[in-house]
């Protein structure tokens, strides 16, 4: 069968601009015209619609499953259960523990039990109701701290309820100090809430394989997991990225991949699946909620002596990224501060709560909220300014982090805090205020009476790219040829553009490296080597490095061709303006003439430098490639009577190593900060007895344009000598440091302890 009628587009818009400039997105015009093909827009003649039956119970045994009545419905073409999974009915990113379709047990509310394909989405929805499932309902395990330690609880998986336990010991774990502060902090379950629903179109192929067009963050990891479940060799399961409506970690795990392919292979027809918003809340993993016990000890002068912490991460029903969350959470647990002594323990556990996995700031969001709350508490105990305490303890290049790793690249933490502290503050309110600027806004809940203002800081450290010994790499293929008399480069990778602007960056790198204007970006698919995931702030670093390497190989091939034609090697050749230029500035060849009908194509990989696993006992090891740093200052107004909060201003300073596209960098910082604001004051999936109570955009609130205050963004560029172009991952840090800055500002305004985010009105009013 052919490709879908609406399918992923090659991006040919050529907008000048190399590295360090801010050319516009090549997909921008398509997107504003409504012509960009997102995964939910895909369409194929003769296609069917897939739908999923999900468990209403968080924990139950399946006693009986009968699909015959559903299959008999007019317009229904297939109804499949776990017995129809052609290959192995198990997948997972780190551990293979997740069934494609539940067998005898369901472990969370919303777990897929059966799938079907029908002529119309409504026929599909109605037919789901005809599937008979009898459940023997079991008591759900919902308390992560108990799940970590209580061996008398039922085991949700054969290995028990512990996914990972990691201890980190540095210096003297029993050190004592003059001034000690402690606290217990909790963080709720946040959702990625990307706008484009999980969706894709599976098209059966003549070779018995399947072509899947979809929105994802990592094509090859989806291909591996899907092929295994389908019992097909990798080359028969081909994936192509279609338009992705945001991701933020929520598309790292599989959703409809295996299901749509199973239905397409069974019916012999293209099958489209597209979740609605309710199903989306059940169909992807969320951010791990956590409970964290922290104790900080310091000298009277405000120098940190020790940190002791215990942290519990609720992984929900399946492991997903829980092992990485525990790794990141513990290794980043003391923040961007010099701490000579530490004793840290982290647990990631299975429960019958919704499965938690990747979300922007993975594993660093939780401890940052806790240690930054502690830093303010310590500043208060010492009578020090909170910014001053942070500056006094800030790590820098050459510091040793809690895992013993020496930071051998710039780490301008103190400067970030100074810069954000020194940005101008909003004017103090005087006289009558526009109610729209007050907490409650146009709801007219206050005219300024009972409103107090507070300022707070948040600073973070986040590891960039994959860690703990993983060989994390990307592949790029670059082809140079002459089209219409002009040299044109075509960049082909499997790296997912999820909104962050990677397609722009690929063009910028190729233009810079090959000294030409016209660059196209081929749709990402699995016909080129693995690019890894669009996550962990890694794509500019890793795929950027791969595109650079491939471009340089293309340039070398061009120089060799020139040498052959000229009969001599060109000294210090470079490419500029479509020509080969010698070191002395002499133009030795015109690319268009030199290449003629010849196309030069090279494929190269980029591997970042090696990392190492943590010692299981001491947690020591060079686990991370690079760190990113950011600092926020928040100004809030709080209505003490009603508990309403208005974030008045949110400013950020971040070091990005090299701003490859300065406008896009600022946009990442603004967008990330909005998600951090959401976690601070509004975003939480409410779970009771394992059941989600607010799976909709009516009840799960994300910041609107009225909630986001003006932002000042101060971007530092301190190149990392180990990274391509000196880059430092950008995407995650701003999400992480925004949350504690706002929480600390609310505490400063109210004087309340507020040991949990999101902070709700009732936490402030005490009602």
């Amino acid at each position, binding site marked *: 069968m052919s490709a879908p009628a609406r399918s992923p587009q090659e991006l040919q818009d050529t907008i000048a601009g190399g590295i360090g400039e801010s050319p516009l997105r090549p997909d921008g015009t398509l997107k*504003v015209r409504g012509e960009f093909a997102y995964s939910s827009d895909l369409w194929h003649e003769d296609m069917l619609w897939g739908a999923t039956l999900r468990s209403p119970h968080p924990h139950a045994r399946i006693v009986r499953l009968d699909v015959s009545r559903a299959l008999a419905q007019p317009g229904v073409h297939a109804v499949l259960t776990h017995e129809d999974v052609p290959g192995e009915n198990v997948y997972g990113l780190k551990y293979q523990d997740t069934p494609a379709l539940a067998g005898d047990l369901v472990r969370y509310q919303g777990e897929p039990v059966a799938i079907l394909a029908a002529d119309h989405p409504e026929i599909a929805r109605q037919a789901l109701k005809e599937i008979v499932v009898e459940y023997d309902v079991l008591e759900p395990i919902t308390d992560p701290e108990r799940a970590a330690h209580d061996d008398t609880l039922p085991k949700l998986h054969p290995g028990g309820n512990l996914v990972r336990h990691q201890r980190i010991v540095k210096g003297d774990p029993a050190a004592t100090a003059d001034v000690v502060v402690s606290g217990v902090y909790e963080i709720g379950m946040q959702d990625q809430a990307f706008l484009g629903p999980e969706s894709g179109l599976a098209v059966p192929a003549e070779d018995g394989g399947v072509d899947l067009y979809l929105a994802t963050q990592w094509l090859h990891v989806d291909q591996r997991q899907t092929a295994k479940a389908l019992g097909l060799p990798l080359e028969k399961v081909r994936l192509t990225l279609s338009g992705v409506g945001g991701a933020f970690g929520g598309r790292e795990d599989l959703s409809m991949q295996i299901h749509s392919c199973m239905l397409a292979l069974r019916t012999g027809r293209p099958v489209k699946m597209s979740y609605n918003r309710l199903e989306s809340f059940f169909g992807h993993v969320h951010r791990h909620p956590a409970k964290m016990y922290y104790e900080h000890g310091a000298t009277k002068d405000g120098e940190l002596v020790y940190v002791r912490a215990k942290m519990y991460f609720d992984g929900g029903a399946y492991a997903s990224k829980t092992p990485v969350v525990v790794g990141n959470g513990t290794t980043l647990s003391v923040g961007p501060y010099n701490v000579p002594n530490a004793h840290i323990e982290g647990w990631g556990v299975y429960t019958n709560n919704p499965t938690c996995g990747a979300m922007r700031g993975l594993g660093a969001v939780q401890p940052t909220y806790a240690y930054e709350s502690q830093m303010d508490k310590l500043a208060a105990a010492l009578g020090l300014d909170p910014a001053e305490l942070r500056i006094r303890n800030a790590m820098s290049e050459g510091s040793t982090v809690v895992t013993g790793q020496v930071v051998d690249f710039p780490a301008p933490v103190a400067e970030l805090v100074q810069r954000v502290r020194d940005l101008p503050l909003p004017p103090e309110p005087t006289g009558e205020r526009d109610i729209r600027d007050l907490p409650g806004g146009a709801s007219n809940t206050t005219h300024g009476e009972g409103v107090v203002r507070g300022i707070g800081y948040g600073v973070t450290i986040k590891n960039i790219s994959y860690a703990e010994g993983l060989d994390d790499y990307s592949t790029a293929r670059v082809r140079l040829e002459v089209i219409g008399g002009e040299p044109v480069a075509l960049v082909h990778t499997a790296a997912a553009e999820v909104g962050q602007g990677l397609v722009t960056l690929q063009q910028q790198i190729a233009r810079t490296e090959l000294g030409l204007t016209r660059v196209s970006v081929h749709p990402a698919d699995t016909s080129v080597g693995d690019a890894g995931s669009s996550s962990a702030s890694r794509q500019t670093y890793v795929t950027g490095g791969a595109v650079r390497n491939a471009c340089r190989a293309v340039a070398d091939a061009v120089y060799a061709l020139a040498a052959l034609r000229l009969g001599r090697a060109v000294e210090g050749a470079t490419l500029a303006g479509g020509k080969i230029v010698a070191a002395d500035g002499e133009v030795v060849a015109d690319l268009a003439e030199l290449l003629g009908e010849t196309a030069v194509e090279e494929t190269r990989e980029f591997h970042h430098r090696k990392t190492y696993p943590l010692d299981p006992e001491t947690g020591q090891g060079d686990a991370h490639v690079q760190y990113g740093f950011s600092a926020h200052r928040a100004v809030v107004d709080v209505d003490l009577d009603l508990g309403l909060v208005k974030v008045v201003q949110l400013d950020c300073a971040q070091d990005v190593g090299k701003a490859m596209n300065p406008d896009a960098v600022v946009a990442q910082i603004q967008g990330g900060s*909005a998600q951090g604001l959401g976690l601070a004051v509004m975003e939480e999936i409410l779970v009771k007895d394992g059941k989600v109570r607010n799976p909709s955009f009516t009840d799960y609130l994300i910041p609107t344009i009225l909630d986001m205050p003006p932002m000042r963004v101060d971007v530092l560029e301190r190149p990392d000598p180990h990274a391509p172009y000196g880059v430092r991952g950008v995407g995650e840090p701003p999400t992480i440091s925004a949350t504690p800055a706002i929480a600390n500002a609310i505490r400063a305004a109210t004087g309340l302890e507020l040991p949990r985010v999101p902070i709700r009105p009732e936490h402030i009013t005490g009602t």
Partner: protein
Amino acid sequence: MRVNVTVNGEPRRADNVWEGESLLYVLRERLGLPGSKNACEQGECGSCTVYVDGVPAGACLVAAGQAEGRDVVTVEGLAEGDALDPVQESFVEQGAVQCGFCTPGLLVAAHDLIERVPEPSDVEIREALAGNLCRCTGYEKILDAVRDAAAKKALR
């Protein structure tokens, strides 16, 4: 049932429409206009905002039958041929588009605002766009784009 509706100036007909279908489904799946987006289909996110008889509405909350005989303008109808509307131009130029899934709805809402209020203040922009969720941008560049589009329209 059959639904007759004028879309972006052209009379269109959709046959075999099931009574429960929304205008959004008819536009996207029956008339080949997927520009209006299916982000929540609950009237909460604004991604499917279209003009119905000149008034912005969430196409997901309009039943297909209610659209009978109406005049609908979608994001696909904002440009005139190759010429983008200023609000489209400004969204691209100001970096207000990231993943772009919220963009079609925001464009229609912003277009309507500038038609009604040629020189909107920041507070007016924020109030007008409060029904359109964006998860990527943090909204700063969307504000820039609307200000820019208003200035452009004033010059034309």
